[in-house]
């Protein structure tokens, strides 16, 4: 499989939905496979909230977040398809975001324009134009990446042949927003946050970021999965992360949260959770999901997981029913998924066959 990682400069203005604008921006992008001559085999893979462009292959000891799905003969066969994975604007893995500098050479920090999912789509549309891709064979993603895929199909109906919406929703719920706000508050109240200007003080609100992620992480797992994996097992004394940890689950969250806080940027965390909160595809369509989906020409596949309590299956069903009502070609697959909301990341025979059949059917 041909793999390339490039930081691509888009030297045009991006007008954001908020009214703010970026004069130019960079997108860290992974490419897997080869674009064919007709340029009709391109697949856009959209990462979730804290993901990155690194979707497949091993790099610096890390395996891509959808490695089991992307590659030769895999779910998305890179011998046939040219897969593009972009680190979203506002994130912190190389694309323009709070860590980048503005035109005056000053770091954005918390002043990076507040983005919406539609801005990501606009930025990627500009990337597609630059690459000469007129139509995606498929745009697919899970969670926030699924919302982004849906937005693509709505914003640029003629550019999307098929769209895969995995473990996602047409809008975030009040509960989603509430949990995100707790996570943000924990970061903001870290004494090292300095109103988002922590880097100027050579600090980082790692304590807050860690706690935020710990809460977030719980929402990505299912109660059943946690019980199976950790139950009420006590933590072995020798491998305790912190002294006051008793149970394995506590230790696990401490470890995962800590690791995350080392590699993620707090301003990005706040910005990206707000992107999620803002998402409501029917906004601007009199709150009618059916009206929002009216212009879609893509074939749609929605996959929901019964163990997902962040975006319960009713969300996926709603998208499918509204699509059918709007006379769209839409399929809905419901799987238990052992991993709660995160199930979309994990290989599963039926799940992968569903996606593969959907992608390859004519």
């Amino acid at each position, binding site marked *: 499989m041909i793999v390339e990682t490039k930081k691509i400069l888009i030297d045009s203005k991006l007008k954001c939905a908020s009214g703010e604008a970026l004069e130019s921006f960079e997108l860290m992008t992974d490419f897997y496979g080869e674009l064919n001559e007709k340029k009709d085999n391109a697949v856009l893979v959209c990462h979730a909230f804290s993901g990155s462009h690194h979707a497949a292959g091993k790099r610096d000891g890390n395996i891509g977040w959808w490695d089991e799905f992307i590659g030769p003969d895999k779910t998305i066969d890179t011998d046939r398809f040219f897969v593009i994975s972009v680190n979203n604007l506002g994130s912190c893995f190389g694309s323009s975001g709070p860590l980048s500098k503005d035109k005056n050479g000053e770091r954005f920090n918390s002043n990076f324009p507040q983005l919406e999912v539609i801005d990501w789509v606009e930025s990627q549309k500009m990337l597609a134009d630059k690459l000469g891709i007129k139509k995606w064979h498929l745009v697919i993603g899970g969670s926030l990446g699924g919302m982004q895929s849906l937005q693509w199909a709505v914003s640029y109906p003629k550019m999307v042949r098929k769209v895969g919406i995995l473990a996602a929703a047409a809008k975030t719920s009040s509960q989603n927003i509430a949990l995100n706000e707790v996570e943000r508050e924990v970061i903001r109240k870290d004494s090292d946050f300095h109103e988002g200007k922590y880097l100027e003080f050579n600090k980082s609100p790692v304590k807050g970021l860690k706690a935020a992620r710990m809460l977030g992480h719980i929402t990505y797992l299912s109660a059943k999965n946690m019980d199976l994996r950790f139950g009420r097992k006590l933590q072995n004394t020798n491998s305790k992360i912190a002294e006051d940890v008793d149970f394995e689950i506590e230790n696990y969250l401490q470890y995962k949260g800590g690791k995350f806080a080392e590699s993620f940027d707090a301003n990005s965390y706040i910005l990206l959770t707000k992107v999620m909160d803002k998402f409501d595809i029917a906004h601007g369509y009199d709150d009618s999901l059916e009206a929002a989906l009216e212009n879609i020409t893509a074939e749609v596949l929605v996959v929901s997981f019964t163990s997902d309590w962040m975006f319960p299956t009713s969300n996926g069903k709603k998208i499918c029913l509204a699509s059918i009502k709007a006379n769209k070609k839409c*399929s809905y697959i419901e799987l238990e998924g052992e991993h709660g909301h995160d199930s979309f990341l994990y290989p599963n025979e039926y799940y992968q*066959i569903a996606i593969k059949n959907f992608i390859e059917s004519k």
Partner: protein
Amino acid sequence: MKSDFKRIIEKWIPQNTKVLDLGCGDGGLLKHLKDSKNVNGFGIEIDISKANECLRRNIPVMQCDIDEGIKEFNDLDFDITIMANSIQCLKNPNLALQNILNISNKCIVTLPNFAHWSCRLDLFFGKMPVTKNLPVPWYETKNIHLCTIKDFEELCNNLDLYVVEKLYLNNNFKESTLTKLFPNLFAAEGVYLIERN
């Protein structure tokens, strides 16, 4: 055999219509109707392997329980609904029938006749029927509400549903003099086109 069945259903389904197939299996019937009648088909199927087959055939499918699905489809607008050999698997066939006619004006129902002579014979010898179109033993069958042709027509009558057309088929999916004369004894399968009165 199955193709005869497809031909019958095909006859009742006009060109370019929007068709809902409840319990669509691997999407074979909808694919056939798409190719022959340019039907805009949509299936409901609970079995994931079969639903995945639908995806392979590019037939849109919602993987869910029919009992549940029908409720959610209430305000959707289909021209015709097909329920081939699945009414006997539902929790409330009577409610389902009424709900289906909220989704579409017309409905095609096919069902195995539990009063077919082969079933009667099995029962006569004290055994639950295992026949050509009821091949699964009682402890494994999904058929929880089996009925006879007489029962079903009585239900339609009670629910004030109008049977526009009906066919009584033998085990080879053919009409015969016997199935026409004594359907409840000789028809293995009843095929109905139903509307609201």
